[in-house]
Structures are given as structure tokens and as C-alpha cells.
């Protein structure tokens, strides 16, 4: 009897401790966010989120949170290389020796976003726990950002610029976090361009969509449906898969019942590669064209899908429309090739390059150089400097950031036909390209 009541008492105490810690966490985090979103003027280092002081001789620490392992590692590594090349170019040349910002070295702290909410949370928490991290280039995937990394980093006042997270919700009022920006395009634009391509070039009137429940893919299929239907098309079925699935034959057989003109499957590898492979042998889909997006656009796509990938259309940033074209072709790409021994692994390296440069410019304009050689970077001032970036000429085009977080407001999306795609052939030409601004799309 005595042992039982003692056990009960311990259990109750333990439960109370859990509840108390949970409640106190909520309070401190909500105080932090109101503090940072409220102050837009010149805040001093004693109010949240405070400043980073980089002592003389110490490096400025910039984090990256990209998907550098697993099935999407080409996507993440590609962006990481782009960001590293920007740090290299700080001294004006691509010579594999990093440059400096305001007399301080730059140290990149690389974390993995796992292309998932789990990974985003882990990586963001690790970076946020380091008080010397000035800003973060990341995440690769929308699923790692949305409600996870963007929130965790914003609450600590860490400016985050994503090179490839394209989900519309990340920059929509209500879900946008104040310290979050991106040089990646907004998927409302990409979905609209794919839909236009299907209607204009493929004369499609019926389509089927396949998403994998992640924010990125759902944003695209929703945008595609809205635009496709606005142009008179009809979506015959909308299906969902699990990104770990291997067997799509029953699903494709089912879709074949309606024989749509196009299937839009903007999923990640290996799912989209497997869909391509299994679609090729599904009867009823011989006249159906497969469309994908930049989630598929990395080297593992053709590796897994083999010859059944030929003839699939993949959308993505139009690399040929980069206005930094000469610099991109003659300086950036050769340096990428030389330093990493490969052709670009995916299509967001230039976005990462520009993101890092926007960040560097913002640090240079907002940091205070002290007499003792140290540098004080006020987090709020840094955020404002990034937000006020206007007319910056990057590789991807003119970058002007908005309070919503979108820095690439006028975007050219190209539709490429495999095997003439950016990740296989850097000189690939899109078969269809369209430039849209955010205001023009649904």
C-alpha cells in the first residue's frame, strides 16, 4: 500500500513538472516573437532579439540548413556549393579561398534539413542554439521550413533566406515569419506556367495530379488545378502518394481509366522517377504526357528512371534566362565544375549564390564596426537591410525583397524536356518559357 501511494505521488509530480515546463516554454517563445515582430526601427542590443558581436579575428558564422543527405541530397548539396562559391567570390575571384566581410572571415556552419519537418526542426534548433549564428541560408525543402524552421529561426531573430523552398504559404500573410526570405520563386508562378504549357503547347484539356502530401507538392498541384480549370481544362483525378512508396502501378492503372492528356506529378525523387518508370509500362497511358517540377530535377531522376524519363517535361527556373548570363556561364559554372568536380547537381545553385550575396550586402550595410576591431550586427537592422534590398543585380535577375519575404518577384520559369534538362546539360534550352510576376497569378 505504501509503495503504491509513493509511486502515485511521484507520477503526479512528474506530470506536473512536464506541464510546468511546457507552459513556461510557450510563454518565453511568445514573448520573443512579439518582441521581434514589433520592433522595426533601430533597436538596441538589449531588446530581443539582440545583436551578434564578432570579436576581432573571429569569423562571422553563417549557417546553412539544406537537404544534404538522403534521396534529395543533390538538391541540398547543389545549393550549399552555390553558397560556398559566393563566400569564395567575396574576394573577387573564384580561387577556392574564401573572402571576408568587413575584415572578418566567414565560417559556414552546415546543417541538414532532411527535406522534412523533422529534419527542419532538428537543424533549425541546432542553429538557433548557437548565439553566434548571424543568419541562415535555408531550407532546401518547403516541408522543412513551413511552420518549423522558419518559425524556430524567426523567433531567435535569425535572418533566413531560402534558395529553393517554393511553397506559396511561406510568404503569405498569416503564415509568413518576419525573418524569412527567399530568392526561390513562389510556386504559384511555377504552377501557372506549367498549366499554361499544358494548355498552349500540349493542347491538354484533361489532367490528373499526384502529390505526396508535402507543402511543396500540394502547393503546386493546387496552383495547377486553379490555373488549368481557369483555362477551360478539367482535372480528372487528384491523388496522393507517400513519398516512400515504391509501387505506383495500381494508382497509374486507376488514372489510366480516365485517360487524361497529362499527369502532373511534381513530387520528389525517387517517387517521381518511379512514377515515370511505371507509367511507361501502364497500358492506357501511352498518349498521356508526364509533367514534373523542380523537385524531380536532380541527377538521381534519370539514374532511377532510365530511358523511361525521356519525353517527360520538367519545370524549373529558366537557367538560360539568367540575366547574369555571361558571369554565370563563363565564371560561375567553370568554378563550380572545378571546385566540386561535377556539373551542377540541381537547379538552385545560382539562387543560393544570390541569397548569400544579398545577405553579405545586408551585413555590410547594417553592421557597426567598433573601435576594438569587433563587429556588432544588430539582428533587427540586418533583417531590415535584407528587406530593403532593391534592384540588386544577381545571377538570377533583379532581386528586390518584399515585406512578405519573396525576393524574386518577377520570375522566368522554363519547361524542359528530358534529356535536355539543366541537371544533365548545363546548356539545356527550355521548350517553353514564361515570365510572370506574383500579381499576375491566381
Amino acid at each position, binding site marked *: 500500500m505504501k509503495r503504491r501511494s509513493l509511486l502515485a505521488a511521484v507520477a503526479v509530480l512528474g506530470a506536473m513538472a512536464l506541464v510546468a515546463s511546457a507552459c513556461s516554454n510557450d510563454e518565453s517563445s511568445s514573448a520573443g516573437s512579439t518582441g521581434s515582430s514589433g520592433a522595426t526601427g533601430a533597436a538596441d542590443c538589449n531588446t530581443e532579439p539582440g545583436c551578434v558581436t564578432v570579436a576581432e579575428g573571429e569569423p562571422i558564422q553563417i549557417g546553412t540548413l539544406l537537404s544534404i543527405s538522403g534521396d534529395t541530397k543533390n538538391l541540398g548539396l547543389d545549393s550549399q556549393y552555390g553558397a560556398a562559391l559566393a563566400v569564395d567570390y567575396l574576394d573577387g575571384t573564384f580561387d577556392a579561398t574564401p573572402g571576408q566581410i568587413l575584415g572578418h572571415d566567414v565560417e559556414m556552419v552546415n546543417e541538414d534539413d532532411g527535406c522534412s519537418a523533422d529534419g527542419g526542426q532538428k537543424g533549425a534548433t541546432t542553429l538557433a542554439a548557437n548565439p553566434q549564428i548571424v543568419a541562415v541560408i535555408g531550407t532546401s525543402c518547403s516541408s522543412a521550413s513551413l511552420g518549423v524552421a522558419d518559425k524556430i529561426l524567426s523567433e531567435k531573430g535569425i535572418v533566413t533566406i531560402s534558395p529553393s523552398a517554393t511553397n506559396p504559404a511561406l510568404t503569405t500573410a498569416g503564415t509568413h515569419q518576419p525573418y524569412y526570405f527567399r530568392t526561390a520563386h513562389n510556386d504559384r508562378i511555377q504552377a501557372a506556367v506549367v498549366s499554361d504549357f499544358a494548355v498552349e503547347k500540349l493542347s491538354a484539356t484533361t489532367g490528373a495530379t499526384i502529390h505526396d502530401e508535402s507543402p511543396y507538392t500540394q502547393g503546386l498541384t493546387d496552383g495547377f488545378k486553379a490555373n488549368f480549370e481557369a483555362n477551360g481544362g478539367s482535372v480528372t483525378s487528384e491523388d496522393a502518394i507517400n513519398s516512400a512508396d515504391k509501387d505506383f502501378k495500381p494508382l497509374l492503372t486507376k488514372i489510366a481509366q480516365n485517360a487524361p492528356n497529362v499527369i502532373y506529378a511534381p513530387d520528389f525523387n525517387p517517387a517521381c522517377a518511379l512514377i515515370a518508370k511505371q507509367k511507361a*509500362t501502364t*497500358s492506357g497511358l501511352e498518349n498521356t504526357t508526364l509533367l514534373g517540377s523542380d523537385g524531380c530535377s536532380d541527377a*538521381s531522376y534519370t539514374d532511377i528512371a*532510365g530511358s523511361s524519363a525521356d519525353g517527360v517535361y520538367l519545370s524549373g527556373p529558366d537557367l538560360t534566362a539568367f540575366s547574369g548570363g555571361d558571369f554565370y556561364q563563363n565564371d560561375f559554372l567553370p568554378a563550380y565544375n572545378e571546385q566540386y568536380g561535377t556539373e551542377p547537381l540541381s537547379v538552385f545553385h545560382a539562387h543560393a549564390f544570390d541569397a548569400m550575396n544579398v545577405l553579405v550586402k545586408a551585413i555590410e550595410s547594417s553592421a557597426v564596426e567598433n573601435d576594438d576591431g569587433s563587429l556588432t550586427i544588430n539582428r533587427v537592422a540586418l533583417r531590415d537591410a535584407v528587406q530593403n534590398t532593391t534592384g540588386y543585380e544577381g545571377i538570377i535577375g533583379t532581386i528586390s525583397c518584399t515585406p512578405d519575404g519573396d525576393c524574386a518577384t518577377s520570375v522566368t520559369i522554363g519547361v524542359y524536356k528530358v534529356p535536355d534538362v539543366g541537371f544533365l546539360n548545363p546548356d539545356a534550352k527550355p521548350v517553353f518559357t514564361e515570365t510572370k510576376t506574383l500579381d499576375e497569378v491566381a
Partner: protein
Amino acid sequence: MAKEGVQAETPSARELSLLERLPTRRIILTVLTVAIAVVVGGGIYKTLTLPAAERLGWSFWANLLVIGLALGAVYALIALGYTLVYGILRMINFAHGEVFMAGAFGSYFFAAAYAESGFLNAHPWAALGILFLVGMGVSTGIAVLLERVCYRPLRNAPRLVPLITAIGASLLLQNSFQGFFGSQTRGYPRPSLLDGTIQVGQVSFDKIDPVVIATAIIVMVALQIFVQRTKTGKSMRAVAQDREIASLMGIDVDRVVVTTFILGGMLAGIAGVLYALTFGQVGATMGFLPGIAAFTAAVLGGIGSVPGAAIGGLILGVAESVGPYLLLSGVHVPSPFELRGVITFSILVLVLIFRPGGILGTGEAEKV
């Protein structure tokens, strides 16, 4: 005889109340049975009576059936590994999914090299033969290693101990492969001989599906002959029946156990190569889900029984492929394909509730 609420006094000395006399377990089971029958029957009925415009033609079902049988054949081969080991050792080898993965992964390196050099398409039969041999070799190696290192020392431990060890071994193998070879999925080439579709009347299927089914059937028949007709097979059945008496009869139990693992490994290796050829990819974590599905299949068919594993695998494969559309199209559940896993594991749960011995089992539960 109502067991609930009976006190130590003689039954006649105390009237049992109505509540105590109710056979609660039987009532719950009956309610559950009726509910399942309604859901399944209702779903199937609604799907088959959809209005003509939405109705799915019989060629669709035939196609799904073939796909399901091919998947089921792979599950059956893996399930045989589970069932053989359980029969001999009364232990669920949870690391068997990784044995399957190892075979597929091992053959991948050869397959990729052959595809690049063109050997795969120039001499497909020779190449396939080598791939199967390599797959079987690697799988068998891992299986024997598992037996020697993880399970033999625990031969006489309480049954829960090797079970947990198996789970640990499974994670160890998964992460080792990830560590050595990376965690990304790799494409597995298919010889052009097996590419393409076959048209039978109105229905057309992937060429690879009937190949998988045929291969699996041949292998399973060979296994059954081995177990029933050869001396080693007889020793296996003897050890499965009663280990101690068998060893008293002069049977080398250790050798029989190793033989069992070898057989299971070979089957898993064949399954691995077939799976890789069908789905075109291998990865360090590919063994996890098929492993659980095959375990379900083995339980469904009656764990410990060879024909049971085969039947269980085929039924489960068909249920996974046909089930979602058959049950859920009629009630307009969006994207029924996503709920395949629900069907697979519901079957597992229901089998364990209603008939833990499986289809070909004895109908009684056996506690670990």
C-alpha cells in the same frame, strides 16, 4: 461455463448476476465481425454498383490482380524465410527484411556495372543468372552471419530475448548499409528483355509481373519438394516438431538451423532481385516495409507452415493492390491508394484477434 466473476465458493452457493454471465469476449468478437463484414461487404458492393460512367471495367481489376499477384509472390518468398525460421526456432527473425535488402543491394553493384558495359542487354539470361546468384549469395551470407552471431548464443534464452535481438540486428544492418553505401536510393537497371508489356485480350500487363509470379512459384514448389522429400528436409521437420527429441535421435540441430537460415537467405535473395527488377530501385531502407508485410503474410497463412506462407503472401499482395480500390472507390474516398498500409496492417491485427494460428494454422494462440 462462465469464467468471469466466479468466486472460490462452489457454483451452486452463489447466483451469478446477468453481467457476470455474459460471454464478453465472444460478444466483442461477434460485434467486430459484423462491423468488418458490413464495412468490407458494403464497400465492395458500392464499388461494383457505381454508375456506369464511373464504374471500373473488369480489365482494370484483372490488371490490378496481376500486379497484386506479382507483389504477393515477392512477399511469399520473404514470408517463407520467416516461417521456416519460426518453425525451427519458434522465433520471429525480424532482421529478415534486411537479409532481403542485402541481396538486392549486393546484386545492384553487379547490375549497374553490367548495364553500363552493355552486358545486361547483350546476354540477358547470363547476366540475370549472375545477378540471382550474387543476390542469393549475399543474402545467405548475411543470414548465416545473423544466426551465428546473434541467435545461436541465445538458443536457450527466454523467447523474448532473441526477438529483441532480431529487432536490434535489423536496425544495425540498415544503418550499416546506410553508412557504407549512403542513404540515397539507386536505380536498378532492367534488361530490355523484361521491359515492356504483354497484351492478353483487353488486358495488358508489365512483362516482368508474370515472370516474377512464375519464378516464385517454381522456387516455392522446389522448396516444398526439398522439405517433404529429402533427408535434410525431414530433419528440418523433425527439429520443428521437437528440438530435444530430434537431437536425441542423432540429428545435428545446429546444422539443421544453419540450413534453415541458408534456405531462408536464398529465398530472400531471389525475392530481393525480383523486387529490384520490378520496382527498379534499391536503397538501404528498402527492406523494412516489405519485411513487415511479409511477416504479416506469414502470420496470415499460418506461421510455421510453408504452404501457409505462400498463400498468405499471395493473398496479402492482392489485398494490397486490389483492396483499396475495391473497398473505397464506391464510397468516394479520395485517393484510396494512400490507405494501402491501413489494409495490410488491419489484416494483421484482425488475424491476430480472430485466428492467430493463421489460415492453415490450428486456430489457437501461442504466447511468446
